[in-house]
């Protein structure tokens, strides 16, 4: 318990680059040695709006990838959708802008000790951290397949280089504007059987994570998902980002998605109780 936030540091980090990729921004931040302690699944909390901002809370973003051997020293990649006021401010920060960051935060995706077949499922820009994860899994000898989904083509995040670490990538859109028409969950039961999957990793909207758990609960497959809940602090002090989770003894408690997550065991999350009074 005394190890909460154990790798986390607060630092002022310069933006190395900010490129628009479809509807999203790819923002690279120079974080020096901190890159070495970031694992797929971890997130970063960033101050937004500058000193005179009326936005007092940090914004949490999944760390999509880190690199420790670039000409800039260690860097961190973020994929940001300019949706809310805070992320719009972040997307407007160009090269050289200084960001006040706290990272790495939260739990990381568990990596299998054996080279087993795994499936990565991403919804919208939730796919971003899965590419860094794919590289790690691939380097451990896992067969990595990927399914990405979104409501429409513009919301799919699938960089060309992301395909290197995966065996196959299938895309689903609800309006059929890219890949197959349908939802990411459609092919999962078949893939579990055909590929003999050991683990499904997912990141995306909560209803998607819940739907995947409903499938994985019928099979012998582990579901590691990165959850999402309104969060004020990101470091475990505010108690706002809680998710109902059942422990091994069968007791349900409200766990903080910032320190007991964001990566959680999907089969333990009580999806039907999210947003309900326990």
């Amino acid at each position: 318990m005394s190890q909460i936030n154990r790798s986390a540091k607060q630092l002022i980090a310069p933006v190395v680059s900010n490129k628009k990729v479809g509807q999203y921004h790819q923002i690279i931040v120079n974080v020096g040695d901190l890159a070495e302690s970031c694992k797929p699944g971890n997130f970063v909390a960033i101050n937004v709006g500058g000193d005179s901002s009326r936005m007092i809370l940090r914004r949490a973003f999944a760390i999509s990838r880190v690199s420790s051997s670039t000409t800039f020293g260690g860097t961190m990649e973020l994929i940001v959708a300019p949706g809310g006021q805070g992320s719009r401010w972040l997307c407007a920060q160009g090269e050289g802008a200084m960001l006040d960051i706290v990272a790495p935060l939260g739990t990381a995706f568990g990596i299998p000790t054996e080279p087993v077949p795994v499936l990565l499922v991403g919804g919208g820009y939730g796919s971003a951290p899965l590419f860094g994860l794919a590289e790690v899994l691939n380097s451990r000898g896992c067969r990595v397949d990927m399914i990405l989904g979104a409501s429409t083509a513009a919301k799919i995040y699938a960089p060309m280089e992301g395909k290197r670490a995966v065996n196959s990538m299938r895309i689903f859109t609800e309006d059929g504007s890219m890949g197959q028409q349908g939802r990411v969950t459609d092919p999962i039961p078949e893939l579990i059987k055909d590929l003999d999957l050991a683990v499904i990793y997912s990141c995306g909207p909560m209803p998607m994570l819940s739907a995947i758990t409903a499938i994985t609960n019928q099979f012998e497959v582990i579901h590691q998902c990165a959850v999402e809940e309104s969060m004020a602090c990101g470091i475990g002090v505010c108690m706002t980002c809680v998710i109902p989770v059942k422990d091994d003894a069968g007791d349900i408690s409200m766990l903080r998605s910032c320190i007991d997550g964001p990566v959680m065991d999907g089969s333990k999350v009580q999806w039907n109780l999210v947003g309900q009074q326990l």
Partner: protein
Amino acid sequence: MELGRTAAMSTLDFSTTIGNTWFPAPTFTASGCASSGRELAQFFPLREMGGVVTKSVMSKARPGRPTPRMAETPSGMLNSIGLQGPGIDAFIAKDIPYLVEQKARVIVSIAGETVEEYSTLARKLRAVSGISAIEVNISCPNVENRGLVFACDPEASRRVIDGVRRTIGGELPIIAKLSPDVTDLVSIARGVVDAGADGLALINTVLGMVINIDTMRPQLGGKTGGLSGPAIRPIAVRAVYQVHAALPKVPILGMGGVSTGRDALEMILAGASGVSIGTANFGNPTAIMSIQSELKQLLIDRGFTSLKQAVGFAHRTDEVDQT
């Protein structure tokens, strides 16, 4: 008092006292804004601040309110946690020993649904070593009186503090945490001090609401929430000022949107003997450390040689020219 620029070289007595307890610095966490301290320990040694005020604990473990539990507002936020917590027994077993081991000074905040629950909590804490003071959070619904918040009812506030005082004996200072959502804060403050409170914590959050214009329903799972952050700071300064004017000898922990050393000094000048930092921890895990060093410098710059000289300085009637 002689005030001069030369004081920059002098040393500053930064200590404060609440009741009979001495704290080396006047900076505290605000209850509910630092959990039980562990989470912040990665960012700075907990013993370096005045003290940790722990999240209000109740008799039994509580799951709290449904999510969403927070909504950011201009220069502030609403929260609706519903006092999620482990219950007093687990808290005494796990959280206090950790804080004592860190050499942090501990103020335990308690909350109850009945007058009796507060007394029961005090009884359990009486035997625990390593506690510097007890904060009694009376901004809770009284189940014995139609859910009326204790802090909004002068008589119920007084009875809670009286019960805790009788149970705890004379040793441990009691700090009553009051709500600003009342018509006459001074009379409530007077009542709890008469009932045995050694100090006051001002202010708790201000009740508010955000409506989501997409769902067209209240944004928070609990519908209403407590507003905190710089948005409420002037309310807090006013509350501290008014209560200090009426009860100048009663130490006050001032809180409500303190984010910088300047804000902390404002509270001290209004009459606070210490400041609690709450929402600022969410946006900046090292906020308390920077507030502490900024406050020290601001006091020195103004010629104060002790924090105590500055407490309530805004109330002075003499014509001291500080230019």
